[in-house]
């Protein structure tokens, strides 16, 4: 017997009462060794900021984070660069899972943040499954000590989202 799954519905605009929590942006504590600050913006198909999105970070065996966008569509997280080895032992480039919820998204979206200046990116099976022109949407940009990662929901330079 296979039960049909419960369908998804949008997180709506008022998730602020229920989902965010203090310190949610810290996947690892700020200042811990190997921690990076990630900053970005969620942008719609007209290039306008999305002020009612919620992002979640999940790094298995590292930690979970949750941050809502502000009036400018901006979010930030403190993440750690994970090891190069997947749970199943295969080699892969380090990455961070990014899940996006928003008013207007009837289902959540899943993407990944890869690290700039990472030699393992060149041989990574996931990055290589993405057409080269779109690959840069998955790789954060170094901006001083901060990593910059925008999420473009639609249109030119649309972020790559994965079927899961």
């Amino acid at each position: 017997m296979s039960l049909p799954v419960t369908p998804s519905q949008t997180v709506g605009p008022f998730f602020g009462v229920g989902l965010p929590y203090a310190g949610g942006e810290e996947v690892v504590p700020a200042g811990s060794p190997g921690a990076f600050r990630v900053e970005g913006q969620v942008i719609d198909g007209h290039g306008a900021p999305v002020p009612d999105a919620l992002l979640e970070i999940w790094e298995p065996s590292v930690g979970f984070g949750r941050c809502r966008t502000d009036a400018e569509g901006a979010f930030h997280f403190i993440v750690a660069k994970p090891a190069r080895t997947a749970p199943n032992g295969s080699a892969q480039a380090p990455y961070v899972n990014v899940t996006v919820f928003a008013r207007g998204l009837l289902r959540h979206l899943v993407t990944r943040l890869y690290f700039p200046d990472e030699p393992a990116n060149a041989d990574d099976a996931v990055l290589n499954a993405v057409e080269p022109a779109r690959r840069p949407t998955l790789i954060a940009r170094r901006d001083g000590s901060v990593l910059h990662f925008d999420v473009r929901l639609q249109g030119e330079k649309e972020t790559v989202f994965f079927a899961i």
Partner: protein
Amino acid sequence: MAVEPPYLYPDYVGTRLRAPAKPLVRLPAGSHDFPAPMFPRDVGPAEFDLTRQHAGEPLGERIIVSGRVLDSDGRPIRNTVVELWQANAAGRYLDQEDQHPAPLDPNFSGAGRCITDEDGRYRFVTIKPGAYPWKNHHNAWRPAHIHFSLFGQHFRSRLVTQMYFPGDPLMARDPILQSVPDQRGRERLISRWDPETTVPEWALGYQWDIVLRGREATPFEEEHG
């Protein structure tokens, strides 16, 4: 049968500039086979009761919402966090973004959490949320609903959805519920009034089971549309 709503559903105006225009990228098998997030906060034993978070009781019709969290083989998903949020009885969220001119209730914040038990069961005590207007189209009203967020066991299990109440006439004109393409899929979002869950002289009871995706791929599912 398409189970999930499409990303682009033009009747729900908010999807028009936010739905990805390009197909989702399919990765090598197993790329997302890893455990669900570990929710990093403790869930207190009283967080299931939204009627006891303030000095007084909230106004409205007191209800119990309970059900089981299952995988698609019908196995209970134990010890998983269930998060819930909702409008008050007047149809107003405490959220500062909500500008609907209906009263706030000083005794109702509208958010709760619990953890499923050995049978995968969750249970909340709350009040029935009111319907409220929104600007999607002329005279648009959201049917009464409660938002749910669940993690389950696998990364693929993550679900944010909404639970509706049986018999609500607003459901037929709600583009968010109607975005679910199949009638049976929409029915899965509607709770059932249940005399066994109802507590005499105290609260009406509703049952609503939630089925989460497991690690197996579902190749029949639409990837885009």
